[in-house]
């Protein structure tokens, strides 16, 4: 064959490519497992948090429509771990692992890094909520957490994405639209009604007094106006005073009715301390009693307690 013929050139390039291709395939066969093992090595310390001592394998072949799943790892004989990144309250986002055991129960739930507000969003990765998630299965809806709604909604989205993958891979049918009941806000320290609430600057106006019952209109500064740690003034909220109408039985000096008429604190956070039930808690209370504060809404809770105190003080002054 002539060196200048087209056929020769095509053949030469073809043979060259075939040789190179074979060589590359050979090297790839040697290096690919090493590269894969090295890639999982970086993640191994995290995966060990959930399944200590297991043999891990990265699953690369998955379709995640939500785009939240960063990695899927199989712990041989134990379950699947999903690494999820989503954004909650802190714009830097957070990363956590959720694992499902092979029987479908949650095998682990742990944050790798998050910058959610301590006492609010951070509760999504601590204590009761973690235990609650660990008690679920891959077909249960993920509950939200009052006072940490934004963070737990993002957690929920992530876990839902992992559930979708896990349930599809294991042919588990479930209702993806099921909604879980919100977990009750956790109880905080008790707030005694006879504490010093001077900084709340309560103002009391007597609405009626028939000698047995007195009704007062009380206003108080709340979290936003007190601005205890300078957070409120940067939040862009328009804060105002909390206002309530409080009835006091003058003979026993107990509160007989407590109705919040104006809520001036942060929606979604402070209002966990002003629910119907929280207002009802004041009924039957005297100055010697205390109410339970709500974690994450302590200042609003104190503001309400301060108003109760102011009404009781006004009643005893009569």
């Amino acid at each position: 064959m002539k060196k200048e013929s087209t056929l020769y050139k095509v053949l030469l390039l073809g043979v060259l490519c075939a040789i190179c291709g074979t060589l590359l395939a050979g090297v790839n066969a040697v290096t690919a497992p090493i590269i894969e093992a090295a890639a999982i090595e970086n993640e191994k310390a995290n995966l060990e948090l959930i399944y200590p001592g297991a043999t891990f394998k990265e699953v690369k072949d998955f379709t995640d429509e939500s785009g939240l799943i960063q990695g899927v790892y199989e712990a041989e004989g134990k379950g699947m771990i999903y690494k999820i990144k989503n954004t909650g309250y802190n714009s830097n986002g957070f990363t956590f692992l959720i694992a499902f055991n092979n029987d479908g129960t949650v095998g682990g739930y742990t944050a790798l890094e998050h910058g959610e507000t301590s006492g609010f969003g951070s509760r999504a990765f601590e204590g009761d909520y973690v235990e609650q998630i660990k008690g679920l299965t891959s077909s249960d809806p993920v509950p939200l957490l009052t006072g940490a709604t934004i963070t737990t909604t993002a957690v929920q989205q992530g876990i839902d994405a992992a559930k979708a993958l896990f349930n599809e891979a294991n042919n588990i049918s479930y209702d993806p639209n099921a909604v879980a009941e919100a977990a009750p806000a956790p109880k905080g320290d008790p707030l005694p009604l006879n504490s010093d609430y001077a900084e709340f600057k309560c103002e009391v106006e007597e609405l009626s007094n028939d000698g047995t019952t007195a009704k007062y209109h009380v206003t108080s500064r709340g979290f936003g106006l007190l601005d205890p740690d300078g957070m409120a003034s940067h939040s862009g909220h328009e804060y105002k005073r909390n206002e309530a109408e409080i009835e006091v039985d003058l003979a026993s000096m107990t509160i007989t009715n407590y109705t919040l008429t104006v809520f001036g604190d942060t929606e979604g956070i402070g209002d966990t301390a002003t629910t119907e039930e929280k207002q009802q808690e004041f009924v039957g209370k005297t100055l010697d009693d205390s109410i339970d504060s709500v974690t994450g809404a302590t200042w609003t809770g104190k503001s309400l307690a301060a108003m109760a105190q102011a009404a009781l003080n006004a009643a005893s002054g009569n």
Partner: protein
Amino acid sequence: MSEKKQKRSFVSEMLYNNPVFGLYLGICSSLAITTTLNNAIGMGIAVIVVLVLSNIVVSLLAPITPDEIHIPVYIVIIASLVTIVGMLMQAFTPQLFSALGAFIDLIVVNCIILGRAEAYASKNNVLDSAKDGLMMGLSYTFSLIAMSFIRQLLGTGVLSMSNPMTNAEIFSLRLIPEGYEIGIFTQQTGAFLTFAILAAAVTAYKNANDKKEVAKQKAKEAQA
């Protein structure tokens, strides 16, 4: 490269035919990766391996390669070699691989390699081509080390090296006290500054040496 066949020392030859400072080849990667000695040596070794092997293969294939397709043939050879080196680096020196990043793959289009294949290996025998590849690779590595030495020292104040297989530190010397480093040298600007100064120094050396050689030549002629 130079027309007059002068006997020069190894170092002198290295400076004369230095691809980076003498011929201005392969500058792109030199500017980009010379932030640490580790990167420089890793990149240098990768280039030496590719350059020697590609020179050998090209010189072997030269007699059977028609002129019209010689560039595609070289590119296939070089690309395969670079991919192999890249895969080996990713497997055995992952830290170095991620530090060098895209510049491993970009060895394919590094002018030094295609340049040597075209200018030397395709016209010379296997042994000479391998030698040429080694020499060129060493000069390239030398240039990278020179640049990264200056940049790492001035930019971070520390000279350090680690074993790329295990990431164990081999040595780490703080030569400039903390707070007195010149951060710009870790940036691209610093790369250009370093490059310009070294290239100027090499040119100055070459000019001075040329004069000396001419003078010697004349003295010889006068004697004869």
